[in-house]
């Protein structure tokens, strides 16, 4: 009895000891910096770009559009544009992920893993490299641009980049694997007898998909949406390399404040807002998932 409790104590001690270094590291280099960001967002920028510890709400007012010179919609629009880009990327990747997931799940057993690996490999190559590749793919003399020129979608001699189209193409290409994996996990487990029952009742096409299949795939789509939306909204490389001056996103604004403009308190306010936004989004996903579960029970 005595040795037993001693042994348990020792095992608890070793558990704590093995947890300690990793959790301390994360607290020090993850939580502390996030806390610093939140604190600095209430500070003032000095004349030389230094941070002065004078409490202010000014930075948040500026993000909301109320600057020194009255209302200016620049920052709110950037915020909304980033959310819009994230939402569109979620929608487009979801539409693209479905056929791929269905085709892979219908492959014979041993080819399924291969199919998944083939889809995921591009995702493992460098994002920067893939973005740079889209610059070449959409340059004026590329096949895609020539095709668009032939259709008179763009004036001859111009490419499809820089611009919004380039950003969207690259975003979908980059985030598709994030969507495919969870969607595939749902599609794999589909109960096709429901689809057969719906077909017996005369359902075809969209109604068949909407009522017999979509409810079963929804958990995968939700998980995929979270995986895509979070990084897509904060993306700064893709708009930076493929967009023009009109496509400044949250990430680019952040980079500016910590780079050329050197306005750290304002940048911190933007970062804090981004964190709040993502937190709200995760809570929303949780609530929707929770409702689903309740409905199923």
């Amino acid at each position, binding site marked *: 009895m005595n040795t037993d409790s001693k042994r348990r104590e020792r095992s608890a001690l070793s558990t704590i000891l093995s947890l300690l270094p990793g959790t301390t590291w994360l607290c020090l280099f993850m*939580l502390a910096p996030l806390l610093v960001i939140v604190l600095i967002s209430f500070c003032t920028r000095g004349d030389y770009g230094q941070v002065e510890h004078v409490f202010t709400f000014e930075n948040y007012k500026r993000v909301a559009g109320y600057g020194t010179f009255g209302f200016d919609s620049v920052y709110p629009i950037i915020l909304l544009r980033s959310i819009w880009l994230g939402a569109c990327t979620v929608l487009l990747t979801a539409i693209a992920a479905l056929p791929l997931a269905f085709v892979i799940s219908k492959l014979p057993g041993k080819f399924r893993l291969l199919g998944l690996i083939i889809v995921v490999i591009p995702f493992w190559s460098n994002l920067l490299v893939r973005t740079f590749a889209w*610059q070449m793919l959409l340059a004026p003399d590329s096949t895609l641009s020539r095709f668009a020129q032939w259709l008179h979608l763009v004036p001859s001699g111009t490419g499809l980049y820089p611009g919004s189209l380039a950003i969207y193409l690259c975003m979908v290409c980059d985030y598709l694997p994030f969507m495919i994996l969870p969607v595939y996990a749902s599609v794999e487990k589909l109960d096709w007898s429901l689809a057969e029952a719906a077909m017996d009742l005369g359902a075809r096409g969209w109604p068949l998909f909407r009522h017999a299949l979509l409810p079963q795939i929804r958990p995968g789509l939700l998980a995929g949406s979270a995986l895509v939306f979070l990084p897509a909204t904060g993306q700064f490389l893709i708009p930076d390399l493929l967009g023009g001056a009109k496509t400044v996103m949250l990430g680019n604004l952040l980079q500016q404040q910590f780079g050329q403009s050197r306005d750290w308190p304002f940048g911190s306010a933007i970062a804090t807002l981004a*964190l709040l936004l993502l937190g709200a989004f995760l809570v929303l996903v949780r609530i929707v998932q929770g409702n689903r579960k309740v409905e199923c029970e």
Partner: protein
Amino acid sequence: MNNRSSLFTRAAALLLVLFLYAPLIIVIKNSFNEAPFGLEWKGFTLKWYVKLWNDDLARSALKNSALLAIVSTTVSTILGTLLALGWSRASARWSKWISGLLYIPVCVPDIVMGVSLLLFYSMVRQWLGIFQLGLLTMILAHVTFQLPFVALVVRARLTGTDPAIVEAAEDLGANPWQRFLYVTFPLAVPGIAAGALLAFTLSLDDFVVSFFTSGPGSTTLPILIYSSIKRGLSPEINALSTLLIAASVIGTVFMALLEGEKLVKNSTPV
């Protein structure tokens, strides 16, 4: 399902795979293209690779990238494995807290992580005079985003092993240390190796966090690529990019081979 929609779905899937691979194909193709600029094929050449090999900037970036990836992977693999060991034995309530802590770096966008570390380093520097931006600050940053991934992969391995094996060792009189050294650890090795490979490729490919935590003289390969793209292209970038693609793809395929068994189990309905 009827065949027509299936054919349509298949065509769509094929197009999508092409779409996913188009960027990789064009970079690899151009790295062997005689023409320095433009997309037209002017014949096969290896001269960009040779040029790259003789480029001092690229060499020092490669050295920095390798050093950064090796050191950060070593540290994060040790810390992550320890964390996973403790995590797999923690009570349900603690386990929830730990997973919450681990998911923060996974969920926070890399740019927010980058700028928060930049600020944090500068504040600590004001107080203590340490954390001059350079390789050290980059290593600390990389370990932070690698650690959760290592812990998650290793823990998946640990919870996947049969507890009866450890119990059998206990029944045979092995003390806790022996049980760890001869049973738990060897069983976890494939998971640890997979976690380390994942951490290595994450470090090698990272641009955003590195960009904000690097200092003069600590340029890594992705930062070099970024500045070349911004400055106007040099044709060697295709060759460098191809090498980077190859490194991460090889790393990932090895990881899939190590933990592929589990992937197969998860993806085939039993």
